[in-house]
């Protein structure tokens, strides 16, 4: 099939399913068809003609980039994020921008100002978040790959809840130039794929040093795709057994424990490891992430872009009203919490303390990786929960990220791979967290696992 008919088919599917799934905030038919016309006459690239969905907090020139927020509902990005530019240069075609929790703050997609995306396995359930729309776009078969972003698990958790692969890279692996900042010491661009190979192909294109993002590291980008079929013999997987206790859903525990056996059958060895400070991850995260967010989101004031409240006769009033009307409740809660922990007299009690415990969380990983190549845990403590189930209880929502958040605190990479379905037919994911720059090893393990144990089922809503 030609590129143009493939892309038309993709866009038709996106438009057909979106009333049910709400996974896209904008579908870019005109842009995508113009790109196909350009590609038909241009040189080959590694992702030539591949349709990609992009989370709506990643800048795409000329396209809406709303961050799932009313305050940016009319914002059109004035430049491409580096990851987007590299995708375009490789021949990929962006077909739309995806739904998300407002400013990536949430674990269910319910804090989006434009309504929650729905889980294609069960439309009464959340897809996870914050990159819920990208996860749904891939899980529903509209695209093979999508970009998301992670601050505390926002790619891995929705990947788990939607039955697909989701990768959070090492801090500094993928440029964040053009990713609207939430918490700068934690934010990463991540990748969703129907398979690990899809993720590897995209990672190889977008990873690497970028002069526009001084936090990207000058570390060689290996050929990830060529590492996928490596033998797992000689690889060691660490199991932190103390994390398989309280708060973990029984069905999730069973499937994840079964996956350990599967990895052993594939040749990997397993060893017990301890991550004693991991249980403090959520507390550390909600101090550091909110503190950084309160600073990063100060720029939304109704002056240079986005929404401005009407009828404010005076400048200061205009700032207050714009932010009051422009932000939703979860964003306000986090901005206020961050303002509080940084406010005069509280810095040492909260922020400085959190940075110390963060150092201990990282030390846990450094010690553990002396014994193993990857650490295996559940990705999420439960399968996809019902829409509305946790929306009145912030702490219960925050605990959805208990298994993912510590990798963001430490800066190490992690991947979620489907490892089975619950009795109700909802996907369960297993997470592998690796040492710094070990994305190739994680993708290799995930690929071998998914080939040996494919998820032999499709969601009830599928483009197919």
């Amino acid at each position, binding site marked *: 099939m030609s590129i143009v008919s493939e892309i038309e088919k993709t866009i038709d599917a996106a438009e057909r399913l979106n009333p049910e799934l709400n996974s896209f905030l904008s579908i870019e038919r005109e842009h995508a068809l113009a790109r196909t016309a350009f590609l038909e006459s241009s040189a080959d690239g590694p992702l030539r003609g591949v349709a990609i969905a992009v989370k709506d907090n990643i800048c795409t020139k000329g396209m809406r980039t709303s961050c799932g927020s009313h305050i940016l509902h009319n914002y059109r990005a004035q430049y491409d994020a580096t990851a987007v530019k590299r995708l375009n240069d490789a021949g990929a075609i962006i077909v739309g921008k995806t739904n998300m929790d407002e400013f990536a703050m949430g674990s269910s997609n319910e804090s989006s100002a434009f309504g929650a995306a729905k889980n294609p396995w069960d439309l009464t359930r959340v897809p996870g978040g914050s990159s819920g729309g990208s996860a749904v776009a891939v899980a529903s078969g509209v695209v093979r790959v999508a970009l998301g972003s992670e601050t505390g698990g926002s790619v891995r958790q929705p990947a788990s809840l939607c039955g697909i692969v989701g990768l959070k890279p090492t801090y500094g692996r993928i440029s964040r130039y053009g990713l609207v900042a939430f918490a700068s010491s934690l934010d990463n661009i991540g990748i969703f794929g129907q398979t690990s190979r899809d993720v590897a192909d995209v990672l190889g294109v977008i990873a690497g040093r970028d002069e526009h993002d001084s936090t990207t590291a*000058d570390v060689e980008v290996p050929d990830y795709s060529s590492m996928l079929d490596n033998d797992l013999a000689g690889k060691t997987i660490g199991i932190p057994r103390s994390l398989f206790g309280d708060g973990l859903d029984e069905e999730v525990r069973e499937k994840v424990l079964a996956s350990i056996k599967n990895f052993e059958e594939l040749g990997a060895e397993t060893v017990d490891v301890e991550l004693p400070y991991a249980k403090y991850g959520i507390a550390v995260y909600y101090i550091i992430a909110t503190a950084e967010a309160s600073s990063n989101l100060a720029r939304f004031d109704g002056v240079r872009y986005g929404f401005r409240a009407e009828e404010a006769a005076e400048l200061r009033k205009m700032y207050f009203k714009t932010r009051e009307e422009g932000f939703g409740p979860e964003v306000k809660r986090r901005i206020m919490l961050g303002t509080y922990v940084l406010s005069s007299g509280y810095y040492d009690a909260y922020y400085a303390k959190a940075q110390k415990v963060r150092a201990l969380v990282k030390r846990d990983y450094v010690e553990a990786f002396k014994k193993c190549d990857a650490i295996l845990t559940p990705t999420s403590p439960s399968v996809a929960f019902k829409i509305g189930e946790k929306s009145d209880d912030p702490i219960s929502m925050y605990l959805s990220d208990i298994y993912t958040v510590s990798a963001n605190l430490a800066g190490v990479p992690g991947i979620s791979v489907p490892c089975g379905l619950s009795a109700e037919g909802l996907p369960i994911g297993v997470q592998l967290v690796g040492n710094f720059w070990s994305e190739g090893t994680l993708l290799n393990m995930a690929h071998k696992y998914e080939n040996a144990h494919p998820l032999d089922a499709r969601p009830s809503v599928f483009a197919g």
Partner: protein
Amino acid sequence: MDVRHVAKLAHLEISDAEVDLYTPQMANIVKYVEQLNELDIEDIEPMLGGLTAEGEQTFTLREDIPGGSLGQTEALSQAPSGVAGHFQVPKVL
């Protein structure tokens, strides 16, 4: 926590209903994060700055050569109110 005071610091004009909603929620979150107080961490170095050794070693300066920029028209194109090459805001005083 005086939520109304914190909102003011954060440039948010919150309503009475929001004060009632956020006050208990934020008290719960603060109580939750205060579990860190049970740890003895006096001698631990706080983790500030880069996360990876390689990131720390990466040279981040570039040659001081002027490059292109958005330009005035494009830079103003997304502003809620712009006039004669400026961002326009309500009166300050």
